[in-house]
C-alpha cells in the first residue's frame, strides 16, 4: 500500500491509499479522480493518463520503458517531469508520491 497524492489542475489535493500492484493510473480511475482519461486502458497507446511527477520523486521512479517517451510526444503540454501514470506501478517504495494532473489530456 502506498499513499499517492494527486493534485488536479484546480489545485485540489486528493490523497489516496493505493494497493501495491495497481498502476498509478488505476489508482486514479478507481477513485474517480478527474483529469486522467486512460482511454486505451493502460496499453501505453494513447497518452491520456499523462501526469507531472514532482521533481524529488521523478528520479526515484523506475525509468521509462521504450515507447513511453514516444507517447509523451503526443501528450498535452509535456514537460521534463512528464510520465504516463499507467506505466508507474504502485509499491511500498513510492509511498508518498506526489503528482500533478494536467489541465487537459488532449
Amino acid at each position: 500500500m502506498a499513499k499517492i497524492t494527486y493534485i488536479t489542475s484546480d489545485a485540489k489535493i486528493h490523497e489516496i491509499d493505493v494497493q501495491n500492484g495497481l498502476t498509478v493510473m488505476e489508482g486514479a480511475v478507481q477513485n474517480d479522480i478527474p483529469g486522467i482519461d486512460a482511454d486505451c486502458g493502460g496499453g501505453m497507446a494513447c497518452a491520456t493518463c499523462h501526469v507531472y511527477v514532482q521533481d524529488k520523486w521523478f528520479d526515484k521512479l523506475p525509468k521509462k520503458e521504450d515507447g513511453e517517451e514516444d507517447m509523451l510526444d503526443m501528450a498535452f503540454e509535456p514537460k521534463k517531469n512528464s510520465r504516463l501514470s499507467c506505466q508507474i506501478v504502485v509499491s511500498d517504495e513510492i509511498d508518498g508520491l506526489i503528482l500533478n494532473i494536467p489541465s487537459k489530456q488532449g
Partner: protein
Amino acid sequence: MNKTDALIIGAGPTGLFTAHQLKLIGLDCEIVDNLDKIGGQCIELYPDKPIYDIPAVPECTGEELTNNLLNQLKPFDIKFHLNERVDEVKKENDKWIVRTNGDTVFSTPNVIIAGGVGSFEPRKFAVKECEKFENTSVFYSIKDKRIFEGKTVSIFGGGDSALDWAVELSKNSKVNLIHRRDEFRGAQATVEKVQQLSKNGKINLFTKFQMTAIKGKNILESIDIKSDDNEVKTIQTDYVLGFFGLIMQLGPIANWGLNIDKKTIEVDTEKFETNQKGIYAVGDICNYPGKLKLILSGFHEGALAARACFKLARPNEKYRFEFTTTSSNLLKRLGKKD
C-alpha cells in the same frame, strides 16, 4: 438518402463482427467510421502489438485481427463510409435519420454504436490562440501541399508524419522543424534524411523546443518557441503544422439523448439497447454491470444487438435461431451453398 436495416457507427473489431452477424441473419447494413481505414483502435493504436485473448486465436496483432475479420465478411456486400463522422441522429416517425459530416444521410430503424472510446480526431496545440488560425494557417493534416510553395512552414512533431512532411516540403518551402526532445520516433532512414537536410541548411531544426505563443492580427505572423532551458525564440512563419497523432473524443454522440456516464453509454444486457428504442451500443463504448472492455465481449454484444435489430427491421417476420453448420439459409448467405 441511404436506406438500410441497420447502421453501424465504428469499423473496429466489434463493428465488423456485428456487421457479420447482421448479414448472416439476413439484414443489410452499412458502416460509418471517422478514420480513413478499417480497424479502429486495433489499426490506429496497436497494429503491431500482439493480442493474446481472442478465443481460439492464440496470438495475433491488431492488423491481423482486422484482416481476419474482413476475410470473414467477404461473402457479404457491406458498404463502408470512411472519413465520415456521424454528427446527427434524429427520430422521424419510426426511423432514425442519421447525418454525417460529409452530408451522407441514412434512414434506418436500427443504429448500432460500436464507437470504442469515440472518434479519432487530431491532437491540437496546447496554445489556445491556435484555434483562431485553424484551417487558414494552422493545419493538422495536409490536403493540398501546393499552398506552401515559396512560404515558410513551421512543422511540430517527432513522428513519421512530421518528418515526412518536413522532407517533402523542404523542396519548395522554407521549413522549420520543432520537436520537444532531440530524439525522433520516425523511421530511421527519414530521421537521417532530416539530419542531412538540417546540415545542408534545407531544414531549420529546433529540438527541445515547444510552442508558447502564436501571433498575428488577421493573418499569422510569428510563433514563439521556448526551450527546456527557458530560451525563447520568435520565428516568422506563414504556416504552422502540428502532427501529434490522434486522440479519441466522444464528440457528437453526447448530444443524441443517450444515458452517458464517464464516456460510456448505458445499455441493457438482453439487446444492448440504450435508453432510445432502436439505438444500441456495443464494444468498449457500452456500459452495464460487469462490463469487460475486451474484444471478445464486443463480439457477444454485437451478436445480441443484431438479433434485436431483426425485430425492428422485419416486424412481420419471426427470427429463427440457426447454426452455420446446418442451416441451408445461412450457408446460402455465406456462399457455401447454391
